[in-house]
């Protein structure tokens, strides 16, 4: 059943390669971002679970 559906898509292999490239680009981009990102932001993020109690009554 799947076979027919998949075969009906033209150039189905092409999509897999494109999606692979998209992922790799995303991953590389994210890694670069991680190296460049503001330390304050990271600190603020990592303290999120600990901060909440201050705001409680």
């Amino acid at each position, binding site marked *: *059943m*799947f*076979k027919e559906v*998949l*075969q009906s898509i033209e150039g*189905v*292999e092409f*999509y*897999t390669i494109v*999606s*692979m490239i*998209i*992922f790799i680009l*995303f*991953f590389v981009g*994210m*890694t670069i971002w*991680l190296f460049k*990102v503001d330390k304050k932001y*990271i*600190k*603020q*993020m*990592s*303290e*999120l*679970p*600990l901060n*909440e109690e201050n*705001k*409680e*009554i």
Partner: protein
Amino acid sequence: MALEKFSYDNEIVRKFTIATTVWGLVGMLVGLIIATQLFVPALNLNIPFLTFGRIRPLHTNAVIFAFVGNAIFMGVYYSLQRLCKARMFSDWLSNFHFWGWQLIIVAAAITLPLGYTTSKEYAELEWPIDIAIAIMWIAFGINMFGTIIERREKHMYVAIWFYIATWVTVTVLHVVNSIEIPASFLKSYPVYAGVQDALVQWWYGHNAVAFFLTTPYLGLMYYFLPKAANRPIYSYKLSILHFWSLVFIYIWAGPHHLLYSALPDWAQSLGTVFSIMLIAPSWGGMINGLLTLRGAWDRVRENPILKFMVVAVTAYGMATFEGPMLSLKNVNAIAHFTDWIIAHVHVGALGWNGFLTFGILYWLVPKLWKTKLYSNKLANFHFWIGFLGIVFYAFSMWFSGVTQSLMWKQFTPLGVLQYPNFLETVLQIVPMYIIRMVGGSLYFVGVIVMVYNLVKTAKQGAFAKEEPAEAPALEKFKDPLKRGVIHRFLEGKPALFISLTLVVVLIASVFEFVPMFLIKSNIPTIASVKPYTPLELQGRDIYIREACNSCHSQLVRPFRSETERYGEYSKAGEFVYDHPFLWGSKRTGPDLHRVGGKYPNLWHYLHMENPRSMSPGSLMPSYPWLLTNDLDISTTESKINTMRSVGVPYTEGYEKVANDDLQQQAEQIAVDLQNAGAPAEPNKEIIALIAYLQRLGTDIKAKNNQASK
């Protein structure tokens, strides 16, 4: 900025907390029972619904979906509200989700012992329950994403990412693996067959471990470990990096469950490569967890909560190192089908999931009931007895697995199997089964102590359904232009996250599946392989009902030790009409793929009535009801029709005459049995089962020379 007043819903967290402990007790108790049955087979009391094959899925489902499932919801409903600084989106949905999920568990607890099963591991539940699961899961999703959209905290903490990835992936897994055509209420056949069915199943099975037992628990770890240690996570950057690599790599690794099987080699290698790669992101999580406690190890000594969490994270690290090692083909050749795998999963289940849950419970219950833990001493006792339980459990199963595997493979200097009788290798490891049961009991005692401790804690405290809180509204989400809900949704990060995770998961799945389903040469057809006769089909469904595949594989691997013992190794083309595939994943008993024609009908008849009459010392339970139950042939027509709709070439109209063929074949077997002196009647279930067993693997026996092209 004006503060908005609201309150956190603690009542729903309390409900899931209670459900977690109750189902934990049930699931582990059933585990103890089946562990004991493995060396006291009479413990099934000759009652169908107490027999190993039927209650083993009850144990796995109860532990995974009831114990761990409720613990996930408990943790998510607690942490998500606080991380988002918002109450859960809808109280009604929360309760609907809670009660619906419990109903599903009850439905599983009823249908599985009654023998309603799809035979697919961790997806045994039949189609109406599958639909109910999908509805509850969607309810959970709406509730979760609704909360995220209405949040008052701009940033989404990494725990939420893990929750989102969990939700998205489990949705995809559940839908794809549950595509089945109903033959009746509570009976269905998957659209995939044989090798393809196996690939889909283990893509699912592996990722159920990844996205039900791992990612949500990593989310919980990222929230509750900093809470318990009162310090932020070691490296937030690392958490981001390992999140994306984990989500991306995990989904590819499924085929490592099928090494040396009839699955094409390229797919097997793909599974191995990605499994090895998985070490990196997995250990990223472990390191992040452990290093959070750097410089605070003195607190671990005193605080039972941290103790539980440290062992949980360590067990996670061990299991995620062992997993990739087991995916190496040379290690897998020894470990697969043995108790080694049982050890592996229990390091994960008892150590990682169990201990993290216990740590969270010890932290959460005093918090919810606004009091202190009733007894630190008892919690410490729980820790040590539980830890000891895991050690006993894992070591006995490691030892048992390696011992048995080496015995299977041992040849004499003359080149014949040293232990040709499978039973001999089983009896050798019975002491290990007893030690495993002792380990499990220790662990169970610990859990009982915990429940006592938690109940006492709750009794001395005062539970408040609502926890008042206040936070400034989120500026960005104030929506001055009133652009509508959809726009707000797209504005936030959740949408981006959902789509990115989905893309990542789908990429890998498509990669795995597209070639598998498209390339014909992946499954060479064998001309002599024919669809099952109606009687064999009915027999096969009895085999599925009794879950024979829990203990018997139907997959002879291409090793000399296996072809000597069982016969010709299994070919992909032999399984093209197997909806579902029944390769199994564990050989508590011998492989059955070539059992057809190996024994006379009478042997099977007597063996099913009492296995010890044919194989003294056998650990297989007796199935006396098969000899007395009438075979239900009213289902034949719908079964043939359903099989045809999924691609089995029964001719049009055959369903009308199928029962004639069925009765004729049953008559032949019954006469043969009667001639041999057994009081067999043709209309009993045992006849169908014998027909199926005698058919197994015989298609290529007839024309062995031209078997595979």
